[in-house]
């Protein structure tokens, strides 16, 4: 999870049905969830994270910025993203999912609101939704993320020193220094020993097994 968590309000889901709501049978296979961000200025969306619960396909829309006094148009930024490869079986049904800015089809720099469209075409599931939705915006650039290149990709310093005849080898002092540095490094890294003991100081006198 990169970036800052944006507090959001997830509205209750609205089921889309065709025809008369009273007489139609069967469960809805499309749900719409609106996510609003009260008291937050339009922000740049970095990541959407949630836990799936039997949703097969996900689409996301954002309102497009329009001049005032005209109804806002919704633009699809993610179309039919597959969460469950086989809607009739359990694969992917309860997975944690992250969606990133670079997967979106449109510009996510000024997000006011999100509309999640959940689809589950299989009639086998009683309900479906997404849970624990969390939205992240671009966070400030933390120092740890920007490594200087030489630190993250160390290059071995292979500079062969030209050997000068007759003079004492100038590499000797550098050799000693390097060996000392290696020693310090090995001393510092602690070894992981396997914990073999199962008893407490030789005592393994137990109560009954506990159920919690």
């Amino acid at each position, binding site marked *: 999870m990169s970036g800052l968590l944006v507090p959001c309000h997830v509205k209750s889901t609205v089921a889309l049905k065709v025809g008369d709501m009273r007489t139609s049978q069967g469960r809805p296979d499309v749900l719409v969830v609106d996510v609003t961000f009260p008291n937050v200025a339009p922000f740049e969306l970095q990541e959407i994270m949630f836990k799936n619960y039997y949703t097969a396909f996900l689409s996301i829309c954002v309102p497009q910025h329009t001049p005032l006094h005209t109804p806002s148009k919704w633009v699809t930024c993610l179309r039919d993203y597959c969460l469950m490869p086989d809607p*009739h*079986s359990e694969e992917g049904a309860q997975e944690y999912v992250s969606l990133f800015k670079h997967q979106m089809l449109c510009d996510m720099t000024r997000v006011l609101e999100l509309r999640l469209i959940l689809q589950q075409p299989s009639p086998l599931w009683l309900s479906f939704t997404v849970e624990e939705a969390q939205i992240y915006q671009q966070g400030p650039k933390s120092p740890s993320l920007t490594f200087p290149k030489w630190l993250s990709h160390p290059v071995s310093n292979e500079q062969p020193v030209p050997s000068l005849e007759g003079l004492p080898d100038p*590499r000797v002092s550098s050799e000693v220094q*390097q060996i000392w540095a290696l020693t310090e490094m090995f001393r510092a890294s602690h070894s992981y020993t396997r914990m073999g003991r199962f008893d*407490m100081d030789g005592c393994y006198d*137990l*109560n009954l097994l*506990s159920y919690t």
Partner: protein
Amino acid sequence: MLQEESDLSLVIAQIVQKLKGSNLYAQLERQAWACLQRPEIRLESLKEDIKEFFKISGWEKKLQNAVYSELNVYPLPSHPSAPPEHLKEPLVYMRKAQGSWEKRILKSLNSMCTELSIPLARKRPVGEQKELLNKWNEMGTDEPDLSLFRPVYAPKDFLEVLINLRNPNYENGDSLSFRTHLGLIQVPLKVKDIPELKECFVELGLTTGQLGIDDSTQVPPELFENEHVRIGQKVLVQQDSAAAQQYIRQGSPTALRAELWALILNISSQPEDILYYEQLKTNVIQHDLLVDSLIYKDVKLTASNDDYYFVFEDYLYQVLLCFSRDTSVLGHFAYNSASPPKSYIRGKLGLEEYAVFYPPNGVIPFHGFSMYVAPLCFLYHEPYKLYQIFREMYVRFFFRLHSISSHPSGIVSLCLLFETLLQTYLPQLFYHLREIGAQPLRISFKWMVRAFSGYLATDQLLLLWDRILGYNSLEILAVLAAAVFAFRAVNLMEVTSLAAAEAVLADLSTLKVMPLLQIFLFATVT
């Protein structure tokens, strides 16, 4: 793509973390130190020279094998927000079912404890310790009174739990729909069909040579067997785990099997490993566990009565008793849906600093558990080697056969795969057996839970287990179970009761595993 790069870094970081705690890390450190003496190592290009040395001396290969082993065993890191229990088992209702099942087992063990007034664990008095040490190699001659002990559970009890497994979000209504499961398993896990299995098990195809088929006496060995043995020897010289795993899909020559399995499981018996086994032996001598009696009982009831395995009775005690004391096995609970039972030191109930696992390895044996070890006795004769191989086989494969999970190699998926294969490709047989009250899974379940150990002839069993290792999956057990039903379909169509169906399938000792698998997957007209 950004996401793939960060996923890869996460996997690398995880593997590095795991390997840092291993013997191999210490050995590599020592080797790196030792090779500083060598003339070809120059200080100004230290890192590159040491890497070159590792490559030439074979240490890089050992590291490659260790990384490959980690990739095979540990699941890929899941989403960073996923809690640890999600890695054990992603489906909540399955986690709950496993929790309830475990509670039942614990209750059963506790009641055995109180009824028989035997403590869960007891420190042996010195005299008893000496006695046990003296007869360590012949514990089979001991005839303790085990009449009061009963196995904690048998496979058929576990089957009842799996039959009652339900997803609360699934349409479990009475009305028949296009997805009604006519078998016993009622959860909609994804299982492969025959076209997918053919793709997965492509090396078992009709045009590829197999040990178990193309090494029979009628086939001249020049056609396949000699060359296959030669390649096997080459693989062993190279000491490459991945190559060995690929090679063994066509079966392993008997002479090379022990070494090949050790290579694939990445087991090399170092002095530290022998020492570790001796430490476990000491733990067995010092403490007597209630679980030991369960192990004794199981061995006496199963392996000792088996024509092939009774000779190995003593080995079985030496392995299983030590296995119970091995805390390193606790590591596999990170990816096993099961959890180790907990207890507290007497008098310190509820105090977390006095919480311990019982048994120390967290695994409570059930009826037939010793049959996982028995076939390995044909391959390995030093107890510490036998022990290491069994432990690795358990934490890679066997644990999935007795815990409730949605994993494709888990027993629930295997049962569903078996039933689906039978229902799809032998519908008449399936329907007939169902009608007479002989649900096929009731017969094949015990085969799959034991990975066919004790049901097939040993040479056939070892050929089957070759493929389990080669494909790193237990799905072949379900395919073989379906293939056995297909083979005996004619007789089964004539039976009229569950008992008669059981009788038709009672004796599998004459079956040849590889032809059955090949015919079922590649030669049946669908």
